[in-house]
C-alpha cells in the first residue's frame, strides 16, 4: 500500500512539475508576444504620428 502511494505520489509530482514548466514557458511566450505586439503598435503609432 505504502509503495503504491509513493509511486503514484511521485509520478504525480513529476507530472505537476512538467505541467508547471510547460505552463511557465507558454505564459512567457505569450508575454513576449504581447510585448512584441505592443512594440510594433507603438512603432506604427510613432510612424503614423510623424506622418500625420
Amino acid at each position: 500500500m505504502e509503495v503504491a502511494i509513493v509511486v503514484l505520489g511521485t509520478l504525480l509530482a513529476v507530472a505537476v512539475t512538467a505541467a508547471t514548466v510547460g505552463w511557465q514557458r507558454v505564459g512567457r511566450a505569450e508575454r513576449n508576444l504581447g510585448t512584441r505586439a505592443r512594440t510594433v503598435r507603438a512603432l506604427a503609432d510613432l510612424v503614423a504620428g510623424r506622418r500625420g
Partner: protein
Amino acid sequence: MLPLPRAADVILWGAVVAAEAVALLGALLLARRCSLRRWFLHPDTFIPACDGAHVVVMLCAYALADEVLLAAGHRWIFAGAPRPFAGLVRVAYHLETAIVLGWPAVLAAASWRVFAWKVDGRPAFLAIGACWAVVAAGLVVRFPVGRAWTARTLHGFELVAVAFALVPVARAWRRPWGTAHASVLLLVAVEMSVALIGPFVRNPFADWRLASLAYLIGFVSLAALQAHAVAVIESEK
C-alpha cells in the same frame, strides 16, 4: 511495510544508482555542449538548454556520491558495529548524517542559484549552509539522540529545505526558464514527495526503500529530460 528479500533491495539500489549515473552523464554531456556554445556567444545570453547546466551536474554528482558512500558505510562500517557508535565508527556516522542532511541543503542552494540568479542568492546560500552546519553539529553534540529524534531532525530539516527551495521558484515566474530550472524543480518535487508521503511517515530506518523508489522515478525522469535537451542542442547545430 512488508519485508522484501535482500536481492530486491540490491536491485532497487542498483537501479537508483544506474538512473543517477545516466542523469549525471546526460548533465555532463549537456554542460559540455553548452560550454562550446557559450564560447561563441556572450556569457549572459540566455540559452534555454544551457543556463545553469553546471548546477545540474553538481546535483547529480552529489546524489550519486551520496548513494554510493552511504551504501558502502552501511555495508562495511556500521553493519555489526556495537551501539552507541564510538571512535572512528562514530566519526563515520556523523559524516553519514552530514551527507544525508546535505542533499536537501544542496537542493535548496541549487534552487536559489538557478531560480534567483547570482545577486540575491548569496544570503540564501549562507542561510542554508548555516542551518545545515547547526543541525549537523547539534546531532554531534547531543549524540546519541536515539532513532526517533534523529528521524524527526532529518525530517524537519528536509521539510524546511524543500519549503526554502520553493521560494525562488515563485520569484522567478516571469523570468525565462530552461532545462536546469525544470531539472531542479523536478528534484525538489520528488524531495517533497519523499518528505510528505515517503519513509518519514512511519520509520525512515525501516522504510528507506520508499525513498529509493521516489528517487528512482525522479532520476529516470531527469535522465529523460537531459536526453531531450541534448537532442534539442544537437538538432540546432
